[in-house]
């Protein structure tokens, strides 16, 4: 394989190299990831797009260490901020999930606890490992105090609080009561920043009292609470109506510029990628077939699968009958030989069934895995 679609360097928050993954099932071994590589830069909104069963969600689960027991990683590395996530011990992985990697899923109701209020679920995060959050909580409160002190005449109470918090920040020590208080004000300000109306009220509500869009906002607030290095967002708008989807996508764009977190946005919808992402990787049957900047990919798609996928997307802004890709997604119990797209590919030739193409750079920041381009 040639030199990577990655600029291996300080800029990458995440880099995945040659990741291979199998599922053991009664029917046999499913080769779900067939040596994928990708890298996500700091502060980037990276789209991972593909049809169902292509391995996009499995990729996210592998990064977060949430694979089901019948999954086996048979090769490759997942490097998050310089550390190989795959080599972490379970306890280290737990801490990484608590702090560095946050994940939001398609159906927020499944991931919120129905018998706890939003507030207590948010508080659980800091209580689980207060040490990880002391600095975040105190600096957040200090900033709040600074704002208030500047605008009015000095308030003795606030000044005293500032002093004691600064001391706590130095000693990294905080009582349970203070921790809970700080968490509460931090959580409410986050609920506000995800544009929930009346955040104090939402803080005391139960998940069933919220609509789907509001629940997804709560999930985003809970993810942001950790100031994660990487946010994995798996089909987060698929269950939502289009007007609410637009609200959530807009929020995601706004937040990204506010908190500078890298986001891996997983979706089956190319329109969402076009709307919000910086770069995008197209997946097919356990392989990444093309990686490019979003503008470039839509203007100049190279891989026959990317072309087919783009042509098959119906558009609301143009009258155009979509073209389809003949055939259907292969069964990964017995994946096609060579390039996995060759049975459906209109441009396939004799090399395609016999050899797996490698990822090559066709332009700066544009990588494709296809023999048509020398792969």
């Amino acid at each position, binding site marked *: 394989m040639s030199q990577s679609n990655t600029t291996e360097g300080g800029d990458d928050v995440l880099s995945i190299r040659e990741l291979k993954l199998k599922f053991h099932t009664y029917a046999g071994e499913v080769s779900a990831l067939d040596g994928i590589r990708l890298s996500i830069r700091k502060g980037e909104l990276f789209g991972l797009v593909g049809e169902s069963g292509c391995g996009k969600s499995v990729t996210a689960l592998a990064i977060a260490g949430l694979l089901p027991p019948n999954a086996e990683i048979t090769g490759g590395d997942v490097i998050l901020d310089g550390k190989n996530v795959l080599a972490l011990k379970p306890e280290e992985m737990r801490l990484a999930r608590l702090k560095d990697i946050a994940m939001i899923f398609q159906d927020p109701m499944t991931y919120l606890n129905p018998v706890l209020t939003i507030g207590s679920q948010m508080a659980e995060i800091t209580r689980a490992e207060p040490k990880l959050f002391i600095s975040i909580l105190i600096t957040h409160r200090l900033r709040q105090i600074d704002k208030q002190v500047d605008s009015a005449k000095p308030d003795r109470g606030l000044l005293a609080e500032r002093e004691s918090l600064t001391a706590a920040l130095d000693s990294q020590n905080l009582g349970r009561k203070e921790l809970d208080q700080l968490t509460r004000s931090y959580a409410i300000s986050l609920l506000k920043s995800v544009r929930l109306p009346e955040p104090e009220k939402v803080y005391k509500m139960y998940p069933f009292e919220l609509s789907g869009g509001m629940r997804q906002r709560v999930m985003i607030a809970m993810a942001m609470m950790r100031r994660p290095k990487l946010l994995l967002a798996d089909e987060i708008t698929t269950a939502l109506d289009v007007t609410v989807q637009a609200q959530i996508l807009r929020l995601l764009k706004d937040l990204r510029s506010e908190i500078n977190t890298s986001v891996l946005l997983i979706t089956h919808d190319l329109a969402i990628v076009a709307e919000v992402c910086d770069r995008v990787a197209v997946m097919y049957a356990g392989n990444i077939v093309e990686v490019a900047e979003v503008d470039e990919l839509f203007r100049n798609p190279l891989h026959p699968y990317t072309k087919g996928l783009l042509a098959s997307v119906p558009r609301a802004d143009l009258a155009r009958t979509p073209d*389809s*890709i003949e055939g259907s997604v292969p069964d990964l119990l017995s994946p096609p030989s060579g390039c996995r797209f060759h049975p459906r590919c209109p441009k396939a030739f004799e090399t395609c069934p016999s050899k797996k193409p490698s990822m090559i750079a066709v332009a700066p920041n544009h990588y494709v895995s296809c023999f048509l381009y020398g792969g």
Partner: protein
Amino acid sequence: MEGTTILETTGLAKWYPVRVGRFSEKTYLRAVDGVSLSIRKGETLGLVGESGCGKTTFGRAIMRLTEPSGGSIFFDGEDISKLHGRSLKRVRRKMQMVFQDPYASLDPRQRVRSTLLEPMLIHKITSSKAEAERLAEDLIEKVGLNQDHLSRFPHEFSGGQRQRITIAAALAVKPTFVVLDEPTSSLDVSVQAQILRLLKKLQEEFGLTYLFISHNMAVIRQVCDRTAVMYLGRMMELADTKTLFENPKHPYTKALLTSVPTPDPSRRKELAVLEGDVPSAIGIPVDCRFRGRCAFATDKCGVSPPLVEVEKNHWIECHYDIDFDSHARRELRQES
């Protein structure tokens, strides 16, 4: 209206009785609340809206799969809203439905052959079983599968193939009118395009009329001749698809269209102008349904607006004709 009307509803309503809380009084969830619509022979009419707007209930009500609570349905000029038994069965042969989830609408223990034969035999489409068999073989090829597939079970097929089978089953009784309820929503986009093409081909071949129900504006744009937009049980706007997408007149349609992401980064726009969620359909007040989320609402919107023909063949349920660029509005006359 031009063309012959194949199906027409007048003030069609479906209310579900509900109790909110334990001791509260009985109220109604107004899933469909007075929809008057006519579908022309040979056209594809799109019915689009967000979840809970009543589009599926409307489809089920005109098929008489749920009993309408009010209004009437005319099919080929005949009021079918009160039909029962044999006369209903006679009408049902002409109208069929394809559902969203092909996994749920096929009997897992029946081979494809019997799935296709059963409706033909029930409705006595053919004079002999052998003829029905031939028709089934013909149909399965028409939907892009082959005769070997007839002896297989549903679990042996992919989602797209299953949807082809349900389409074949719907066409087995030679209907003239087919309700397609989100027929491609559970399919991947490359397969969706295959099914949309198939539906188009079959429509031309058999001269079918479609009611195409979907939440996906992009799909509606590609397949429908005219489009109706529903919101909270009412029809907000009805026009030729091209007109509706390029020159929407109702503020809800406008908001819906600006919310749809475009698969073209060079046309990126500011998404989302509409705040909040769709309100509950339980105990809706009599004002305009969209009032709470509408950026243009006035006191006048406390009264439910009538359906007005704002341009030729372009109907909206709104008090105003709004210019969305300048925000200028012209009051529409009540009596039209």
